[in-house]
Structures are given as C-alpha cells and as structure tokens.
C-alpha cells in the first residue's frame, strides 16, 4: 500500500504542476501577444485596486492603485467559462459533441507519464522516481498518445455538424497524420543516437555536461522535431484547423463554456508536453552545467535546482512557441502539405540514414 502512495507523489507533482501552470501560460501568452503587437494586454483584474480580485470578493474598494494588474485575468476567465450556459446546438450530434473535449484534453496529459522531471529523490528513507512511469516502450508511448490527439479534433469537427467545424476537423486530421510521419522518423534517429527508447536512459546519457546534450549530436533532428511540435499542436504558423480568417474558429466554432475551455486547456497542455519532450530529448532534461559540483556541495537539495532547471527549459521552449506564434503568418494549405511531405520527410529520412551509418559501429 505504501508503495502505491509513494507512486502518487510524482503523479500529483506532474499533473498538479501542469494544471496549475496552464492559467499562468494563458496570461503569459496574452501579455506577450500584446507586447509584440504594441498593445497593453490584460491589466485590469489584479489582486487589489479597481476591478481587483479581492475587492470583488469583499465588495468594497480597498486601494486606488492596481496591484498585479491583469495577473488574475485567467482566474476571472475560468469563472466565466465554468458559469456560462453549457449550450449544445440542436443540429449537433450530442454524444460525440460532449465526448470530443475529453478526447482533446486527455492525450496531452497522458504524454506526461513517461517524461522524467527530475533525478530520483530519497524522501523519508524511500527512493522516489520523479517520473510517473518508466515504460518499456518509452518514447513510443508519446507517439502513440500524440496520434490519439487527432480524435478530439476530428470528433468535435464532425459532431458540431457545421461546415466550418467539419473543414477544421478534416484539416487537423490531415495535418496531424502528415507531420506524425516526419516526427516518427525523427524520433527513430534520436533512438539510434541514444541506443534506448527509455526517456530516463536518454536523460542519463545527457548527464555528461553541456556537450553531451542531444541538441549538438542530432541538430537536424532537433530542428525537424521543433517544427513537427508546432504542427502537432496546431499552433501558428500551422494553425490551419482553426484559421479564424477562413473557418471562423475551425473545429471549435460551435463550442462554448467549459467545453471550449477544455479544448483550450488541451492546447496549452500539449504545448507544455512538447516543451518537456524537447527538453528531455535534446536539451539535457533536468541536467545543468555544474550539476555534479552542486550535488557534492549541497547534497540532496540539488533536486530542487534540477526541477528548476527542467522547468526553466520547458518554459523557454513554451515562450519560443508563443514568440513564433505572434511573429509568423499562417501557411497556405498546399504549402503546409508540401513542407510536410516533400521537405520534412525526405530530410528526416536522410538524417536517419546518416545517423544509422554513424552509429552502426557502436552497435556491433
């Protein structure tokens, strides 16, 4: 029984951390977007002051100065989404319409299972692995789960029974399938480099300082993987499934209240997941320069720094995704398909062959 309870620690750490950080990411995205577009962004709902969150609870103004202005906007949004009427269009297919948001939210969560967020720690004499499960199939699990994420979008698009949604759903499935092929081939060359499918082993290989990070050994794979990550998450410049100018809102046109909120959350969790995966595969996981020295100096407390290093790398990748989103324009559909099938896949195959050729002497 105690073993089961200890297993709960990484689960709570990972899932609670992910859920807790999503509202913050939404705030960050809106602020960054505003900064890039030379606007102010959300600055009203703060802690204290006019429109402040505490004052809304108390009911009387406390101060005239806004404190943490806009920081509590996601909280206000969440309250709005939850209390809104849960409306299902009469022409929609009710069962699938209700199921779709769950299918959109679940796969990104499942991907986190195999990601190691930190080194093993010893708590109260019990060794705890900071990874929910070190599955034998390792990184293949991520591919399997990523391929499931097409279902939420396809289901939502079809069940809404509207042309915009259907087109968005169809675009999303086509795009996800195309870029999953390239992603699979890229991951193959990464597997060859690390000679393991376990993400734990991969992070272990990258423990020997900055030079051992996957980024330097598989640069082509890194670039291709980042592009695939954008396409898999349907983020700009690959956001054709929700393309406002053509499709109103794509697959979630007909969704509102918390059902829409779940699609939205799923997208941000997928962003985090891709960030965590990129960190584990290419950016050295929770390792940082000076880890060994710090471990000798302060002992077990180094875990805190390792977790912080992991979080910092993931956040850096997420910020990069936001920066790109508000900087680059959207692809045209044929450009997207050309890039996927005629650009990414041949380069990924070439990279695979070169990697195999380099790593062949190692294996025999």
């Amino acid at each position, binding site marked *: 029984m105690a073993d089961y309870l200890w297993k709960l620690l990484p689960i709570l750490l990972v899932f609670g951390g992910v859920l807790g950080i999503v509202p913050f990411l939404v705030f960050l995205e809106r602020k960054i977007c505003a900064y890039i577009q030379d606007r102010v962004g959300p600055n009203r709902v703060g802690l204290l002051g006019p429109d402040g969150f505490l004052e809304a609870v108390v009911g009387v103004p406390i101060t005239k100065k806004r404190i943490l202005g806009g920081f509590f906007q996601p909280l206000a949004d969440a309250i709005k989404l939850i209390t809104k009427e849960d409306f299902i269009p009469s022409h929609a297919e009710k069962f699938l319409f209700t199921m779709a948001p769950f299918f959109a939210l679940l796969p990104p969560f499942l991907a986190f299972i195999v990601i190691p967020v930190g080194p093993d720690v010893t708590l109260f004499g019990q060794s705890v692995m900071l990874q929910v499960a070190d599955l034998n199939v390792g990184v*293949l699990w991520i591919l*399997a789960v990523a391929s499931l994420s097409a279902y939420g979008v*396809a289901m939502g698009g079809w069940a809404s029974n509207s042309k915009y949604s259907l087109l968005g*759903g169809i675009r999303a499935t086509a795009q996800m399938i195309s870029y*999953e092929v390239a992603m699979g081939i890229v991951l193959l060359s990464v597997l060859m480099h690390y000679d393991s499918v376990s993400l734990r082993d991969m992070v272990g290989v990258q423990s020997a300082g900055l030079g051992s990070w996957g980024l330097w050994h598989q640069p082509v794979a890194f670039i291709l993987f980042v592009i695939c990550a954008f396409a898999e998450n349907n983020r700009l410049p690959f956001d054709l499934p929700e393309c406002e100018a053509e499709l109103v809102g794509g697959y979630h046109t007909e969704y509102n209240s918390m059902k829409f909120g779940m699609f939205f959350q799923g997208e941000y969790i997928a962003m985090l997941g891709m960030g965590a995966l990129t960190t584990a595969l290419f950016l050295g996981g929770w390792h940082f320069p000076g880890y060994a020295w710090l471990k000798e100096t302060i002992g077990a407390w180094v875990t805190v720094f390792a977790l912080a290093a992991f979080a910092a790398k993931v956040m850096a990748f997420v910020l990069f995704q936001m920066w790109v989103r508000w900087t680059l324009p959207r692809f045209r559909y044929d450009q997207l398909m050309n890039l996927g099938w005629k650009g990414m896949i041949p380069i990924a195959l070439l990279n695979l062959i070169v990697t195999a050729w380099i790593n062949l002497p190692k294996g025999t």
Partner: protein
Amino acid sequence: MSPAMLLFWFVVIVIVASAALVVLSRNILHAAFSLCLCFTGVAGIYLFLHADFVAAVQLIVYVGGILVLVLFAVMFSTHTQEGSVEPRRGRLALGAGLLVGALAFVSVVLLVKNLRAPINANDTVAQARAEERNLARLEKPAQGEEPGSDEEIAASKARLEGLQKQSEYRRTVGVDPENPIAERRVGLGHLFMGRYILPFEVASVLILAALVGAVVIVRKETRA
C-alpha cells in the same frame, strides 16, 4: 477476483461491445469511432500478454494511423446520415456471415491450442531455476526428507533439459535472459530481420502493390 482480472474483463467487454457496435451501427461514422475503441481494447489485451511493444505499435499504427485515415474518408463521404447504410438482410448474407464467423472462431481456437510458449525468457529462466532447485532437492534431500524416486529424478532432468534448450534458443534470437523485458524488443527485431525476414518482406511488397494500385485508380488521366 483480483484487480488485474477485473481490468481484463472490462477490456474484454469493451472490445466485444464496440466490435458489435461496428457491425450493427447504421451510422458509419459511429462505426468508425467504435472501431477506434475496439482497436484500443486490443492494445490493452496485448499489454496483458506482456507484449508492450506490440501494444504501442497497435496504438500508433491502427488507432493513430489507419483509423484516422478511415475517419478522414468517412467524413468526406455523403453516407454519414443516420440510417443511410442499410444493413443487408437475407438468408444468403446471414448464412455467409455465420459461416465466416464460425470458420474464424474455429481457426482462432486451433491457433491458440497449438500455440507455443510466447517469447518470454523471464518465465523460461525462472522455470529452469525452479526445476534446478527441485532436482537438487530430489537428489540431495535436506535432513528428514525422503529422496525422490529414480523416475521423479529422470522426469525432472528431462524437464530441465527442455527448459535449458528453450532459454538457449531465446538467447540465440537475441533475448537476454537476465534482462528480458527491456530486451524483448531486441528479440522481436532479430526475429523480424532474421527468421521471419521472408514473410515480412512479402507483406511489405503486398502493401506497396496495394499503394501503387490505389494511386493508379485514383489518378486523373492527363494524357489520352
């Protein structure tokens, strides 16, 4: 009933129910989504058989690849309205269906009955060790215990030899008996690229032929 058994029966019920829905549903999109559930359940059965690699591949290839393509095709088709797919009723169709079903059932039963032990070096090695201990106990019993009869010792030796042969075979196909779970993938790879290379390649040529055929059928004629 243990939790694992409960889970197993849950998976079985999901598979059978969703498979029935695939056949009985009038709406082909519902049938496609049920097929997704069915394939996922089959991946669960693979997990129960300790074939985690096959389970992952089942999810990647069938659930994530083939079925998404099926959905894609179904969403484009005009026959997605309720009741647009009329099930064929008739004695001939019913009889043919029952016959095919019965044949499939019989072949599966025969297959399972004649199935050899799966590649599970862990079990073989563990069994061999247990048999070694058993033999030692029979030959040199502890104080106060009866030594085994000659027949018992001979039977134990025969079993041990068989088990050792099996684990030896597994070692030659690349399954490391000391670390069986992590190495099962390796064994699978060796079998595919060694012993079963011919069927593997024939299957891929078949798929390639189907792919080329599909392109030829769909392609527009550009020249007269």
